[in-house]
């Protein structure tokens, strides 16, 4: 079996950021892999940069951690100097600065999402290379390949907070079903004018997809619960 334990930690990942009427919802899976081995099955890929701005990390775990750490540090100083919360756009541009200037060495795709009083809820996608793209919704990571068609069909403008979160959870769950590099639980972070809410959706809280079965404790439960004896009256 190919268990290359020396392979770099990579977050295969599915990450999503979606704007809604009043804020943003960020979502991610929780699998970190080292080659074929799952190094962490309950990682938290949605990382805080400031009170009102979070980032979804994908690609190399180390690269994404170090980039967020630097940006958190810069934003902390920036907030002190500015005297008020940093905007989502500034956060995205700081990430871009690191991603672009170190493009030869970094292998991380990021989705920055947050809420500020000037622009409301905003999502910025920052893929490999350091391009910044402001989008109404963004998907990233290896699992996102399976979601382009899904979002083309399911996305609509001006969703409510509940609709947006349900869409994100459904999408991450669908990606986990097909992407070997994504798995574990679905984490979401909702950011709006009122603040930040973190949610956690383990496998049993998600709906079942094609060829997935209801989880059981044991085969014995199925056998014991078997139907009535044939020809019993």
């Amino acid at each position, binding site marked *: 079996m190919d268990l290359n334990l020396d392979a770099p930690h990579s977050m295969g990942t599915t990450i999503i950021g979606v704007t809604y009427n009043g804020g943003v919802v960020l979502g991610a899976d929780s699998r970190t892999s080292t080659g074929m081995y799952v190094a962490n099955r309950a990682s938290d890929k949605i990382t805080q940069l400031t009170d009102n701005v979070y980032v979804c990390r994908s690609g190399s775990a180390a690269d994404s951690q170090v980039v967020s750490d630097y940006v958190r540090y810069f934003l902390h100083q920036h907030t002190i100097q500015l005297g008020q919360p940093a905007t989502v756009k500034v956060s995205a541009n700081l990430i871009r600065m690191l991603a672009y200037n170190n493009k*030869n060495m970094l292998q991380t795709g990021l989705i920055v999402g947050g809420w500020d009083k000037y622009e409301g809820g905003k999502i910025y996608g920052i*893929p490999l290379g350091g*391009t910044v793209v402001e989008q109404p919704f963004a998907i990233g990571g290896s699992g996102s390949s399976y979601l382009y068609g899904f979002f083309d069909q399911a996305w609509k403008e001006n969703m409510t907070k509940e609709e947006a979160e349900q869409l994100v959870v459904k999408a991450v769950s669908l990606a986990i079903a097909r992407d070997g590099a994504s798995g574990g639980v679905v984490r979401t972070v909702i950011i709006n004018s009122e603040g930040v809410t973190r949610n956690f959706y383990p496998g049993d809280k998600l709906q079942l997809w094609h060829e997935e079965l209801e989880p059981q404790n044991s085969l014995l439960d199925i056998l014991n619960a078997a139907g009535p004896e044939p020809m019993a009256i």
Partner: protein
Amino acid sequence: MTFTIPIDNGDALKNAETDSQRTLYPYVTGTSIVAIKYKEGVLMASDMGGSYGSTLRYKNIERVKAIGKHSLLGASGEISDFQEILRYLDELVLNDNMWDDGNSLGPKEVHNYLTRVMYNRRNKFNPLWNTLVLGGVKNGQSYLGMVSMIGVSFEDNHVATGFGNHLARPILRDEWHADLSFEDGVKLLEKCMRVLLYRDRSAINKLQISKITEEGVTVSQPYSLKTFWEFQAFHNPTAGAQGSW
């Protein structure tokens, strides 16, 4: 296409340092830009796609931007490098305005600046992975030029980048003439863009046509072109086939 000089002494760590200042390959790319001079100035067409390898990942990228008062810059190639070029030009235009002397950078000056930037990066083996189209009008004079990622720079009456080089330029050579009206110019560009839509895998059907005249810059709203599929030959091409063809 990659820019690498193989140094194989097996020491990946040492190589990483010497290679750290070299761009190897693009990630998010824009496809062709097509531009022509016409009676009142310059028209430039581009689609709004940003491809990530073979995936058509981004469908709302503006690849043509106004520069100062007199120029229009279109870019194909790596989008992050285009964004960086826009930052350089922003600083250039800002410093130009700070003189507050009534003078402003014309398209010829901007084209020259870009040529120097692109060529110097090429010399350091760290190119900005773009082909740029610079069009503009100043004091009644129309200008249209192009710079590639290796610093090749020239002016012409009509230009095209990427696939457009192969598909659009023959059309332009045949059908372009001096003093095209706006309507004829747009129709000519649309003819080129339609062919690119049929034949360029990285083209998407969402384009913008930008215009620059003495009055200023106008960028059209995004729109889609109709395509034609009703050739008899398309309906049932394998009707008389022996096997697969």
